[in-house]
């Protein structure tokens, strides 16, 4: 009698647990597809940003490594070649005609040729790149502090975001872009890099200029940067979320 009951009980539990897990799973998928639930989930981004900004000193540096720590292979993710005709021409001419424009809410809009940028005081940093996928690679980056460029163009008081417009487009023709807070442009490690591991940036890593924004995840590190536009609001640019990946559902604040 005991075993019969026990078996009954076991069958009941098995059935209940199986059904419960199925309901839970499809329930989660339904919530994911709903219009209201993901907007609740996305509240966490603001909490994370608020707390992380509060506990992180403004100029605290991401860890800088030694030469021995550099990854033998630095993976190239996302777009590894813009693939447009204009870009191919730039490659053919070794980017001699590449211009970086800084425009938008600034006192003095300016543009620099790549050669002119390389004349400016550079910063070299060996840092860790943390991809949103989970992998990490260490590389030595050399470039111009974005803060130095900002001091030359003098952002207007209402400039909140620096939008980095890039030369690459995806398979559907959507242009890649990324944005960070203007305040974060002045962080000493926020640079526009033109060298990786003491060699000019190659195409797969974002030649000729890519952003290094060391305190956030890899997808913020825009490649093939052509233009920095200072704006008050991200609405109306691309999908309005502040970046190519942000428009696909990734957080604008990529501190974790």
């Amino acid at each position, binding site marked *: 009698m*005991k075993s019969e*009951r026990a078996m009954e*009980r076991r069958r009941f*539990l098995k059935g209940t647990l199986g059904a419960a*897990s199925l309901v*839970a*799973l499809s329930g*989660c*998928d339904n919530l*994911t597809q709903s219009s209201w639930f*993901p907007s*609740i*989930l*996305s*509240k*966490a*981004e603001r*909490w*994370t940003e608020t707390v*992380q900004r509060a*506990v*992180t*000193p403004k100029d*605290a*540096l*991401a*860890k800088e*490594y030694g030469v021995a*720590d550099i*990854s*033998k*292979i630095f993976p190239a993710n996302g777009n590894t070649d813009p693939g447009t005709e204009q870009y191919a021409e730039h490659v053919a001419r070794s980017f001699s005609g590449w211009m970086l424009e800084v425009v938008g809410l600034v006192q003095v809009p300016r543009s620099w040729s790549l050669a002119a940028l390389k004349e400016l005081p550079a910063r070299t940093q060996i840092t*860790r790149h*943390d*991809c*949103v*996928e*989970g*992998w*990490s*690679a*260490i590389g030595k980056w050399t470039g111009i502090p974005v803060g130095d460029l900002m001091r030359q163009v003098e952002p207007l008081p209402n400039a909140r975001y620096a939008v980095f417009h890039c030369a690459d487009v995806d398979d559907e023709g959507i242009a890649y872009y990324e944005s960070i807070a203007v305040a974060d442009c002045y962080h000493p490690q926020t640079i526009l890099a033109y060298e990786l591991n003491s060699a000019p940036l190659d195409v797969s890593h974002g030649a000729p200029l890519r952003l290094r924004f*060391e*305190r*956030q*995840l890899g997808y913020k590190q825009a490649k093939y940067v052509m233009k920095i536009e200072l704006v008050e609001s991200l609405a109306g640019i691309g999908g309005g979320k502040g970046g190519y*990946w942000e428009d*696909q*559902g*990734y*957080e604008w604040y990529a*501190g*974790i």
Partner: protein
Amino acid sequence: MALLIQSGKAISREGDQMPIVEPSASETLSTVSTPMVSSSPVIERVYRHRLPVRISHWLNVPFLIILIMSGLQIFNAHPALYWGDRSDRDQALLAIRPVQSESGEVKGITTILGHQFDTTGVLGYSDDMRRGFPAWATIPSAKWLAMGRQWHLFFAWLFVINGLIFTAYAFASRHATRDLTPTGKDFRGIGKSLRDHLLLQHPSGKESKQYNVLQKLAYATVLFIVAPLIVLTGLAMSPTVDTAFPWILTILGGRQAARTIHFVACFSFVGFIVIHVLQVILTGFFNNIRSMVTGWFLVQHKGVRHEV
């Protein structure tokens, strides 16, 4: 179920003779039941779990399931683990990948510390999809890193807030020290407790009113070691947190090491949950569930057949 029915009868039959015992007095009052007629079951009601503990416990059920499953979704974006700061592909401690043979057949291959296992159907390749963990183990079920992160980082906040409130309560109410910390006497009985557990013999009567030594160790380890560790290693994967508190990565052994420890801690939770649920079922499912829902736990004293 049988226990519940029998206890229900006992309650109605015995009426107010049933000693209802408050937790603080439960030690001394257990003797009150002795004068009862030996043939009738002597059942004592014990207020076992107080409200904050119950709320925190049940919140953790969805929180942990969601965190584990959305965590596996995130893991699937790069299903490999490493030590140190870098993820050098040739230095992986664990790697799950689909491998296509010459015949065109795809297998899921899991490599752990250099040993290869064919895990087709579960890891690496399942339901005709190339993915680390299978669809039934991830939130969302489809491959969708951005959404997995949304779930994970939202519920991570709730899990941490719940954990902080529980911790504050557990120490303020002395739940942690009184109920969860093994005593010297507990430790001296660890051999017997281990044997009893392996033989699936469970404490009854007075003994069942307190957590046994293995129970205390399991709860204390999960609450005060594994849970803080999983939060710390989760935070350590944040490049901003690493900037603010560089020592975290120093003590953990690097960002990829933190990710590996996070994964191991996750499966420690999975292991704990499996054993925990098994024990709940084996030691009187409905009595246990009721005590975690209402707080009241029924204890059967000697003279009563324990097995039903």
